């Protein structure tokens, strides 16, 4: 374990370009996927929380069920769609970062939506009424609701980030673990460990954890500073 830690520090500080590239690929793939998923989840969670409609309970139960979606199943499903023979095969995105984005968005969309819904439905019922009586229109009510619920929403987004940054199934099946292209920390760990490079795998794992912690602390810091 100590050896792995020493190897991780050595890799980080000796400026191993490939390790930097892999870490960066992991980070930016996850961030972009979470950003896209959040952009869809926030209005979706908002609508589910504030609107009454037929089938609402069933939709929430369905989203909750999807939260436990296995990554390999998502990878498999998306694969079947974007592989050459699939209905979206013409896009030619299999084994590209775009494929990973697609899979990761599908993976974390139900999770973030469900958590955003849960966060917003716990917000005070007086908030929307207060906003409306003071003259806020629909978009402003949405903006202020997100702002007032930002801590819980941030937790939802970070949960989504946690889900995608550490997943292997989608990145491996849709990205193909291609060196200098779609290799992420998790696929690299899987590869190195299977090659018997246990120490290197562990070192990459430590870097992955460091990235996850750094993103969490940074975002929490930003929100705290705003308050």
């Amino acid at each position: 374990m100590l050896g792995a830690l020493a190897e991780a520090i050595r890799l980080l500080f000796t400026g191993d370009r490939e390790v930097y590239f892999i870490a960066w690929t992991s980070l930016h793939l996850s961030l972009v996927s979470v950003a896209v998923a959040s952009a869809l989840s926030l209005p979706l969670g908002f609508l589910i929380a504030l609107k009454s409609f037929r089938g609402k309970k069933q939709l929430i139960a369905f989203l909750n069920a999807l939260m436990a979606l296995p990554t390999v199943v998502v990878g498999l499903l998306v694969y079947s769609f974007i592989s050459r023979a699939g209905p979206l095969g013409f896009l030619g995105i299999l084994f590209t970062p775009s494929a990973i984005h697609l899979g990761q968005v599908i993976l974390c969309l139900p999770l973030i939506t469900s958590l955003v819904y849960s966060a917003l439905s716990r917000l005070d019922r007086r908030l929307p009424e207060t906003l409306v009586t003071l003259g806020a229109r629909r978009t402003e009510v949405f903006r202020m609701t997100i702002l007032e619920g930002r801590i819980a929403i941030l937790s939802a987004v970070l949960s989504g980030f946690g889900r995608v940054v550490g997943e292997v199934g989608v990145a491996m099946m849709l990205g193909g673990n291609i060196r200098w292209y779609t290799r992420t920390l998790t696929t690299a760990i899987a590869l190195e460990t299977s090659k018997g490079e246990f120490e290197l795998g562990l070192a990459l794992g430590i870097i992955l954890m460091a990235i996850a912690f750094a993103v969490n602390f940074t975002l929490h810091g930003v929100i705290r500073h705003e308050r």
Partner: protein
Amino acid sequence: MSAEVLFAVEGVRFAYGTRVVLDVPRLSIRDGGVTVLMGPNGSGKTTLLKLLNGLYPPAAGRILYRGLPLGPDTMPRLRRETVLVHQDPYLFDGSVFGNVSYGLRLRRTPSSETRRRVAEALAAVGLQGFEHRRARRLSGGERQRVAVARALVLDPQVLFLDEPTASVDAASTDLIEAVVRRAAAAARCVILSSHHQGFAYRMADRLVCLADGRVVPGGENILKGSVEAADGMFTYFRTGAGLLRCPAQEGEFTTAVLPLEDVILSKGEIQSSAQNQFEGTVTAVESGDHTIRVTLDCGFPVRALVTGYSRATLGIEPGARFYATFKASAIRLY
């Protein structure tokens, strides 16, 4: 005071699920002054306020604002001209300034004017210099006053206050009373709900009584005026052309409350221990469920309850002259 009808409620029903919480076949609220919705908890006061403010859509019936039915076309005007302050209001996370200036920011008011108006609104509720305080760290009374300032800063035509004194200290109650009086004096209309009788009587130019989601006839004469003299035996309260003898008590009272059932009508003067007797003309006779309400103009309006038998035998009809007699001890001063 304008007699224009501000809100007309026509056949409005509102339900939570299958439970009907408000059923008002007809109600008019006149413009100007202070209208108080009074009733116990759960009588439908808050629901009625929120319906009038367009926060809830009625399940049935319609509400007219200045003669126009509330709907997509009239809602922007209602939003511009009215604002509601909740009981135990929600304050946004952030500063007092952020809270009070919120409505002005929505209306794109220039920042210098915003600062001035926020300072004025805070001064009106006794919170000068509170701009940079964290709103949610204030006491209950201060929070209520911040919410009132947040509404006042918009200079609304109609101010709705839901139980404004329910959870505040005596000092905050006085300040809120002063705010309501100033708003009413500035030709604004204040519609507030209260289950606190003293506050309701002091503030009300008009009283709407609610019970179990229905508007019920008020059981009391609410007479506005002032104390003219006190001699140890009685306190003399001037209302219109009448000088009422009330139980001796000290204080600055503005309202005398006289239960309808404590007023006796007679064709001639009667000799009794009752200290108040006024002659007047019957101006209205309304039939209720079991009793008849008679309004007498004695230089001030006095309402009394009589039975159908009394009406028939005494000939109580509009235009007839009658005496209204009531005991000093029947009057409560607020």
